[in-house]
């Protein structure tokens, strides 16, 4: 396959997933909007109005970037893990595996679907937040880069989960028992500088902390950790998961018999 047929194969996969995401919007796009609207109303407005300012910002302004990031992470992850596992379970993945598309193109097709859904949900949740607070943008480029890198990273991670999953239960274990706790403890609702030294140090081992802080820095110009470290962590993990996915695909793990 020369470059053009590869692009056609990639475009076919992306187009198909985009149509699916939009067609089943009540399962893919609406739930994060409803959930985050409740977060904004309850934690931001009702409880947040009684919480003192963090880094000179109102509580709702402080939590909006983290909540957007939380939705983006979950959406990107769930998109690849569910589409990939479903393709594996129904064996529709064979349609791509028998074709001359190189492995990296198949990976790119699945991952782009996750990035696409993560970014669409991110925009929708930011739009929802406007009903509760004013939008402040400190650096649009940092917001964009943090959002792209995070959705890319969790799309790869979802794919790895999908490769190893042997049942529908296995695709919900990581989001429920790993992703959700890490996100809640990743500084979405508080600044880690408010924590006792031990827990602050412990929090620095949570990769989601760096994503939330990079995103918050882009919106508000405040961060608990160095922005350079944030991007180094996101970039490093993205490269790691990309290489891991490529290795697993080439070996045929969970794909070939």
């Amino acid at each position: 396959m020369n470059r053009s047929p590869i692009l056609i194969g990639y475009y076919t996969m992306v187009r198909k997933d985009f149509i699916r995401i939009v067609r089943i919007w009540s399962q893919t796009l609406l739930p994060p909007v409803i959930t985050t609207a409740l977060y904004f109303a309850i934690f931001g407005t009702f409880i947040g109005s009684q919480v003192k300012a963090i880094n000179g910002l109102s509580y709702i302004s402080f939590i909006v970037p983290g909540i957007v990031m939380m939705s983006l992470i979950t959406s990107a992850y769930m998109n690849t893990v569910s589409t990939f596992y479903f393709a594996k379970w129904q064996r529709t993945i064979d349609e791509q595996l028998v074709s001359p598309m190189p492995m990296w193109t198949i990976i790119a097709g699945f991952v782009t679907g996750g990035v696409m859904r993560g970014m669409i949900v991110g925009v929708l949740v930011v739009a929802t937040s406007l009903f509760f607070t004013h939008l402040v943008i400190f650096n649009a480029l940092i917001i964009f880069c943090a959002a792209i890198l995070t959705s890319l990273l969790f799309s790869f991670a979802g794919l790895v989960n999908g490769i190893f999953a042997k049942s529908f239960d296995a695709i919900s274990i990581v989001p429920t028992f790993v992703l959700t706790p890490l996100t809640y403890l990743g500084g979405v609702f508080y600044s880690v500088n408010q924590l006792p030294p031990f827990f602050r140090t412990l929090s620095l081992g949570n990769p989601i902390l760096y994503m939330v802080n990079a995103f918050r820095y882009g919106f508000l110009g405040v961060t608990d950790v160095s922005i350079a470290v944030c991007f180094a962590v996101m970039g490093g993990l993205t490269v790691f998961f990309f290489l891991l996915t490529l290795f697993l695909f080439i070996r045929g793990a969970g794909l070939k018999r």
Partner: protein
Amino acid sequence: MSSTSTTPESALKIVDLKKVYDTGTEALKGVSLDIKQGEFFGLLGPNGAGKSTLISMVAGLTTKTSGTIEVAGISVDKDPDKAKSFIGLVPQEFNFNIFEKVEDIIVDQAGYYGIPRPEARTRAEKVLTQLGLWEKRGDTAMALSGGMKRRLLIARALVHEPKILLLDEPTAGVDVELRRGMWDFLRELSANGTTIVLTTHYLEEVELLCSRLAIINKGEIIEEGSVKELIAKLNYVTLLLDTKEPILEAQKVLLRDLKIKKVDETTLELTLNPGETVNDAFRKISATGIQVSNIRNSGSRLEEVFVNIIEKDSNHA
């Protein structure tokens, strides 16, 4: 295992192909095959013989333990993407998304082969029309009957116009009329130069369609040759004779020097050993006063060969 020779016109060349699963099961124990371009090749074997494993290894869905596979002279190890572009696979199981529309399944598959969307739509119309599914293009795959789903698998495998079509039991569970229609379609495809490799349980299918076949059992090729060559190995003929009147015991006694068996009141099973002729047997039958109204083959000739070979192989194991 049969030997193979290198020829430039090989469509599919497999040498010493082995597959050992993680569980330790040896699915293929060194299979070699050389299928020529334009051949209609049959792969016969009982359940679990290794037919589907072989097909899916050629298509790139199963990893091989050792051995080599060349598709139209292209090694699947050196240039897997190019080798795959020559192959169309019709799997045994339905592996399309049942929630997708028939036309979308075909057009998207063409896309994976790098065919631009407008051309893919034209090709989809062509293959769906050929297989009698164009009227159903707007329906989801879920709404199709079993036979239609089988045809959809064939249409999907043909949309990129492959040089080699691998069919893994394509007529399983398909009614007789539809099966015959499918045979006509495959014959036409073969006549147009497509190399076809067919695995099936229907021996009649192989007898009618294939120019050459291999019998695989327990992961090994135990016979290979043309259908005529294999049938020639059968050194006896069994015929069923329908009689006008019920056969009397006294008449049967008179036929004791023939290998004859009474199936029911008006049917005899006659087995002719090497050297015996139908004329000799009928002279003896006529002498007893039995009047034969109809003669039939006792079953598929190939089926007898197949059963004999498999039984012999199992006894040796």
